[in-house]
């Protein structure tokens, strides 16, 4: 199998009007020669891939640029909201306010060394309105058409759930894959619970390329999230545990797959992840 997806989707553009019906003579126009259901292996999915050409957005606390584990950051923006709740986007030269965004960026860089990293900072401009800032940042990231958005965060605000759901669905149809941290607390939080995103929990193994598909959602994948040595502030590293570190592992894998199969839509990307998971396939 080759990069069929790239060729098939290349002719489409976001400006085209949606088709609400399918005339009989239009069937040939949407024929997809995907080659599935041939076996989907890791070699096919991301063998030799580097993440090149894939734009990964880190929606977090910022990124410390030129950290040895992160390298160059191709863009850094800070989001705030005005009194009307409208987003204000500005260039961000303040690096990382916490260390967490840098940690996520380092994990992704480690897996997909040639991907582009873009920081969209939604944390650290005052606590009030942080939910609105998160929503505004996500909306802006989707409008930019980033291929992958890493969201190692969630909100519990029910007021935001419907809006987040709409944003997640719109990302799904625009081929922006949202990779979101699940959490194990007995409270509803979003957006990881939505089926249009890829949700991630942690497993206990030390291999960054070990990942599991969970046949009992809502958490759909488990990736490395225990005692991960991650990039932290001022060039340092820190050993960290949490689903927020498992999430960038899956974001990195998505970047690899998309660099080999550009414009693969999120549902197929999710299928490729599932089919190449360590627990899927005949027992050896």
């Amino acid at each position, binding site marked *: 199998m080759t990069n069929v997806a790239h060729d098939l989707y290349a002719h489409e553009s976001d400006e085209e009007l949606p088709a609400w019906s399918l005339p009989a003579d239009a069937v040939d126009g949407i024929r997809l020669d995907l080659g599935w259901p041939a076996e989907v292996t890791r070699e096919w999915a991301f063998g030799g891939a580097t993440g090149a050409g894939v734009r990964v957005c880190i929606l977090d606390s910022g990124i410390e640029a030129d950290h040895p584990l992160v390298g160059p950051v191709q863009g850094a923006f800070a989001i705030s909201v005005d009194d009307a709740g409208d987003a204000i986007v500005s260039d961000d030269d303040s690096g990382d306010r916490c*260390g967490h965004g840098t940690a996520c960026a380092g994990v992704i860089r480690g897996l997909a060394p040639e991907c582009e990293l873009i920081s969209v900072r939604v944390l*650290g401009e005052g*606590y009030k309105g942080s939910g609105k800032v998160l929503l505004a940042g996500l909306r802006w990231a989707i409008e930019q058409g980033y291929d992958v958005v890493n969201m190692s965060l969630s909100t*519990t605000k*029910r007021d935001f759930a419907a809006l987040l759901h709409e944003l997640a669905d719109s990302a799904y149809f625009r081929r922006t894959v949202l990779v979101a941290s699940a959490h194990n607390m007995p409270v509803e939080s979003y957006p990881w619970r939505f089926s249009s995103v890829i949700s991630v929990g942690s497993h206990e193994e030390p291999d960054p390329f070990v990942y599991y598909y969970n046949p009992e959602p809502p958490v759909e994948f488990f990736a490395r999230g225990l005692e991960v040595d991650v990039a932290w502030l001022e060039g340092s590293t820190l050993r*960290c545990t949490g689903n927020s570190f498992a999430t960038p592992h899956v974001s990195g894998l998505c970047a690899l797959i998309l660099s080999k199969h550009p414009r693969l839509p999120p549902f197929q990307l999710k299928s490729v992840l599932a089919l190449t998971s360590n627990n899927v396939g005949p027992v050896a």
Partner: protein
Amino acid sequence: MSDDRFQTAVAAGVLADDELHRSLLASIVETARAIFSAKASSIFLLDEDAEELVFEAVAGEGSDDLVGRRFPADTGIAGWVLATRQPLVLEDVEGDPRFGREAAESTGYVPKGIMAVPLLHEDTALGVLSVLDRPKDTRFTLAEMDLLSRFANQAAIALDLLLRARRARAALDNADEELQRLAQLGRNLDALPSERRGPALRLLAALEEIIRP
């Protein structure tokens, strides 16, 4: 006087005082500290108006005069956990100069490792539960993370009770004299020993009959 205000007054009158809620929180952090064999554990409450985190309960190292201390809600590990609703475990934060400085400034105790979980009640984040410096020689497991999350749930409920009580008391403090007297009546009645409670209730029933509209 509206029914609402009357109910609030009586309820506030018989609510447990701040000290009792604080002792519940203190017992939660003490148990968390013991279960994880940690050096310290603490609960921060979010003061939304001030955008600050306030130490509400502390067990172990540095616990002497921390309760009541504040720091900005959008900074540090606790701030990140609060904003993102995600639990976090960091080891050797000593290597993080920014964290060390903040922690030292606000607590006088610089931990090496920190486990922090958001305290979530319904759709609000009320604060953060932290466990500092679990033993280095044992490997951390995801089961511990689950355990910590369960504790956080308990702490969130306790914190919610504390906040409700404070709100009710604040409402009462601003109430007129009539309402405050009713609250005092409820409080006194609640505190009566059982042998005096019976006669007091009978007197109240008689009063109710006299003033019935």
